[in-house]
Each structure stands twice: as structure tokens, then as C-alpha cells.
């Protein structure tokens, strides 16, 4: 840095009256408590950190194009739509030297093969958590139609997930937009409803641990947390018909005027030690392959978070729905709930 750029930088810093800032908008419970403070200390950048509970919530805020956020964490199926809406900035790989830390399967993810717009962050799957005391083992989605589970079964309160389970029992793709297939799936959901205790998302965790619920359709994150709380009671199954896989990615908004700081932040998250610390706190699975080496053995070999490749091969990624397909699903979903 020569004297002139230093003076300009200093003048800018004085004009702003404070250190450089970065605005990070993430899912709740998705970093370790020291992730952000360590970044602030090392880079001298102050982070304004906000959280959201669902992608539509985040999308509603950033869609305006002047939301004030720089870094966001969209799910895989939203990368393409957000790109189409012109919301995402193209990533500069020369500022992300450690992209190679990513696990091989995330070096060329189907939703962004060149990693031009997003960097995979955490991933997981949807499956079945069940009580070992059940006396039998649910292995397939179709087992969730078993009358023995009546009143003790919960499904996710998330239309794509419930449709996914129903579509898979019928042998269809979970991204189906075919009206006939979706109607058949709806009939499956209606047939299952008398057995369903409630449609719950992360809240099901406590009820699984307490023993109120015998089997639940659940995200791997929720499952891993529940099993960690009651390892002797609970187990997880990856359904034999196939199951949804999801991945959250870190991306930079095009509106951001802090592209360089944002890239620093992504490169920081890509450090194996940083990713490993986040996994330890949140019990999610990092897309960062190199982080594995820094995990305690129990987490590294956790069959829920890091299942073997032959199981993952049965998974199917969620894809964006067309407006027409989305609308049909909404209507069918409303009918299921009426």
C-alpha cells in the first residue's frame, strides 16, 4: 500500500466514522458463537448479522434490490431463480482461493456447476426419525402409512417435503409438476392424515426426545440434534424409495457495494477449521470436505449427517418449481389441510 492509497483509505474511514462493515443475513442457528467475532477481529470488519427462518422470508426482503444486506444463504433450488431475477453477484474465484476445500460432490453442484454464483455451505437430507422402542423399524416412506403409528406420527409442515414423501411412495420424482402425479400424491397425503398427530418442523425435536412422537418426517439437522439428546432412544432412517436432499449456499447480492469484504467472508467460511467449528455447534453437515479432518470422531462418523455414498445416491435435489406447478401444489396442499 503506498502513501496515497493509505490517505484515501484513511479519509474514507474518517468520513464513515467507523470501520468497514459487512451485512450478513443467514438462517438462524447456522454459525458457531465465535464465527462472526473471530472474523471481525481478524479482518477489522464490523459485521451486522441478521437471521431468517425461511427462504421466502429472506427473498421478500432482498427482492427490492436495496435491502442493505451483502451476504445471504439461499437454498440450492433458489439459486437459479435468484440469478434470473438479477439478485446475485458473480463470484470472483481469484478472491476465493480455497474453493478446493469443498467436498468433491459440491465442486460441481447441479444448481450452479461452475460455482459462479454460490458456494455450497451446509447440506442435509430428509428422512424418518423413530423410537427404537417401536418394535419395528420404519425403512421406507410407505411405512409412515402404517396404522400402528396412529396419533404418534408427525409430518413436516412444508408442502414440498410432504409432496416429496408422497411422490416417492408412488415412484415419482419429488420435483414432479405433472397434475396427475401430484393429484395421486395428494390422495396419499389425505389417506395418511387420520394417522398424523400434527405437521411440525423443528419443534418436533422436543417431542421426539420426550417420547410423545413415535415417528417423524424430519430434516437431518433436526434428527441429529434429537438423537444427540436421546441417543439410546432415537434412530434415523434414509427412506428406501429415495429422499430429498437440500443444500444451503452462501452468495453475494448484486446490490452489495462491499464485494471484496464479502468475498473475504466466504473465503473465511471455507476454512476447514471455521467450517468444523460451525458443524460442532449446529450439528449440520458441512459441504466443506476438508473440515472433516477437524471434527471429533463422533460427528465425522455420524451416519445421519455424513451417510455413506451409496445411501446419498438415493437422494434427489429439490429443483425450482414453475409458477403453474407451484400454484397447483398450493391448491392441492390447501385441500389436504381442509
Amino acid at each position, binding site marked *: 500500500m503506498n502513501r496515497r492509497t493509505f490517505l484515501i483509505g484513511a479519509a474514507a474511514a474518517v468520513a464513515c466514522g467507523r470501520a468497514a462493515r459487512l451485512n450478513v443475513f443467514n438462517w438462524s442457528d447456522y454459525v458457531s458463537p465465535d464465527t462472526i467475532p473471530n472474523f471481525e477481529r481478524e479482518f477489522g470488519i464490523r459485521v451486522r448479522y441478521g437471521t431468517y427462518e425461511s427462504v421466502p422470508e429472506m427473498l421478500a426482503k432482498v427482492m427490492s434490490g436495496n435491502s442493505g444486506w451483502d451476504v445471504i444463504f439461499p437454498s440450492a433450488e433458489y439459486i437459479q*431463480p435468484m440469478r434470473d431475477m438479477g439478485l446475485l453477484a458473480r463470484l470472483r474465484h481469484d478472491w476465493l482461493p480455497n474453493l478446493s476445500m469443498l467436498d468433491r460432490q459440491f465442486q460441481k453442484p447441479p444448481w450452479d456447476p461452475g460455482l459462479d454464483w454460490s458456494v455450497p455451505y451446509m447440506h442435509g437430507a430428509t428422512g424418518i426419525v423413530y423410537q427404537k422402542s417401536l418394535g419395528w423399524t420404519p425403512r421406507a416412506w410407505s411405512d409412515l402409512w402404517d396404522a400402528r403409528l396412529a396419533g404418534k406420527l408427525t409430518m413436516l409442515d412444508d408442502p414440498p417435503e410432504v409432496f416429496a414423501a408422497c411422490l416417492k411412495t408412488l415412484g415419482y420424482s419429488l420435483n414432479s409438476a405433472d397434475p396427475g402425479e401430484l393429484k395421486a400424491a395428494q390422495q396419499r397425503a389425505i389417506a395418511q392424515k387420520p394417522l398424523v398427530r400434527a*405437521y411440525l418442523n423443528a419443534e418436533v425435536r422436543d417431542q421426539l426426545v420426550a417420547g*410423545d412422537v413415535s415417528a417423524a418426517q424430519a430434516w437431518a439437522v433436526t434428527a441429529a440434534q434429537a438423537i444427540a439428546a436421546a441417543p439410546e432412544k432415537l434412530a434415523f432412517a434414509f427412506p428406501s424409495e429415495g429422499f430429498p436432499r437440500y443444500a444451503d449456499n452462501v452468495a453475494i447480492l448484486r446490490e452489495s457495494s462491499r464485494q471484496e469484504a464479502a468475498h473475504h467472508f466466504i473465503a473465511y467460511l471455507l476454512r476447514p477449521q471455521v467450517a468444523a467449528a460451525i458443524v460442532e455447534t449446529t450439528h449440520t453437515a458441512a459441504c466443506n470436505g476438508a473440515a472433516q479432518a477437524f471434527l471429533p470422531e463422533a460427528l465425522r462418523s455420524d451416519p445421519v449427517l455424513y451417510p455413506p455414498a451409496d445411501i446419498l445416491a438415493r437422494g434427489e435435489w429439490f429443483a425450482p418449481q414453475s409458477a403453474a406447478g407451484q400454484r397447483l401444489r398450493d391448491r392441492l396442499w390447501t385441500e389436504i389441510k381442509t
Partner: protein
Amino acid sequence: MRLRNAFLAPTAILMAVTMLAPLAIIVVYSLLTRGAYGGVELPWTLENFTRLWDPVYGVIFVRSFWIAAVSTALCLILGFPLAMFIARSGPRKNLYLSLVILPFWTSFLIRTYAWMFLLRDTGIVNSALQGLGIIREPLALLYNDGVVILGLVYGFLPFMVLPLYATLERLDPSLLEAAADLGARPRDTLVRVTLPLCAPGIRAGAILVFVPCLGTYLTSDLLGGSKTVLIGNLVQNQFTASRDWPFGAALSLALMAIAMILLFAARRRGEELL
């Protein structure tokens, strides 16, 4: 007169900005087309309103009305004796009134979660009943319509008690004495004197309970386990999972229109409200 206007101006501006502007946005959104991933796009359309006639939404409206009506009736049945008791408890009045308002010190969300802990299979109620040997298997107390109504009655009872108390407190005791002197039994006094004089309070309480019950979404989600949708959930879904803002806007306008009609219907008698 001019001074009065000057003092009114801040409130008027605040009301215009915080009520009329959002309402205008909702009206505009309800007439637009949904964007593929949320948001709104041109062209202008009335389709969001014609969609409201779909029977599946009619069922949801009727269900929501039914649940709100039952909750309001229960609030009245429970709230009237309580308001009467407080109005007649002399120096302790203020203490009892504070107790009625006390729950507002905690968020409704947290209190709803507290109900979940009480009522779940391994919750306090079921554990106690099992411990006493009254039941063997836990009762399915959560996740049905009854518990949704319980949650609503619990949450909105103060809104019924307070206006009832206000009218009962103003009720001239000499009227009740006169009724007794003229030979009316207590039941006659209640039906022919007290209740008619309390009508404005009953109406105000009923509106204050019914309208928020009609728009509720939290109680049906948490205590009802999302098994059935009410109008509030339907509106919420349009803005989140379904990403259909224009239809969500049309639904909320329909809900607002119904609430307005009820207000006008209740006011028609020419009596003051509240």
C-alpha cells in the same frame, strides 16, 4: 379550532402513513399478477378476487367463522360472571383488574408454548392424571379443534372482560334495587335489566374477541398442529410458502371487509361503541 388541528396533525399523519399507506399497498397488490418467485408483476387483474369463490376457500372461511364464533361465545359465558364479580368487589377491584391484564406482560407466543408443555402427552396434565391412576394412556389433548378454541378463549378473555367490566361498573345499583322492589326475582333482573343495559359492553367485547380470533394463525399452527388451515394461516401461507402475494392480499382484504361489515352491523342500533 386551528390550535386543535395543530395538535391533531401528528396523529393524523401517523395514522395516514401507518394505516392508509399499507392498506393502499395491499389493494394495489391484490390487483396485480404474482411474480414467479414472490413479489408482484403487471398486468392488472381481478383474478385474485374471482379465485376467492373457489369452494375450498369457502370451507376455510366457514370453519374460521365457526371457531371464532364459538370462542367468542365461550369468552362471553366465562367473562360475564368474572366482570360482574370484579365490578362488585369494592376496594379489591384494581387488584383483580391487574390480574386480568397480567398475562399481557408475557408474549402470547410464549404463553401458547406454555399450553403446549401443559397439554402434551408427557406434559404436566397427562403426567398428573397418570400419576393419580385416573388414566392409563395419555389423552390426546393437543392438536385438535377443541384446544385451538381453548387457546383463543384463554388469549382473548381479557378483551371480553374489560369492556364488560366498564359497563357493569357504571351500572346504577339503584336500578337493580328498584327491580327488586318491584318484585323481580334475581333471574328476571339479570335478563330484563342488567343484560340489556350491558348490551354495548357485550357488543364491544364480542367484536374485540371475534375479529382477532377470525384472523388468528399462531394458535391454529401451534396448538392445532397445522392440521387445518384458518383464514389467517391461508393468508400467511400465500406470503411465505406459496409466494402468491396478490392472492394473499386479496384474501386479507376479504377478511378485512368481513370484519368491517360486522362492525357496522354491530353499530347500527345507534348506540356508542366502547
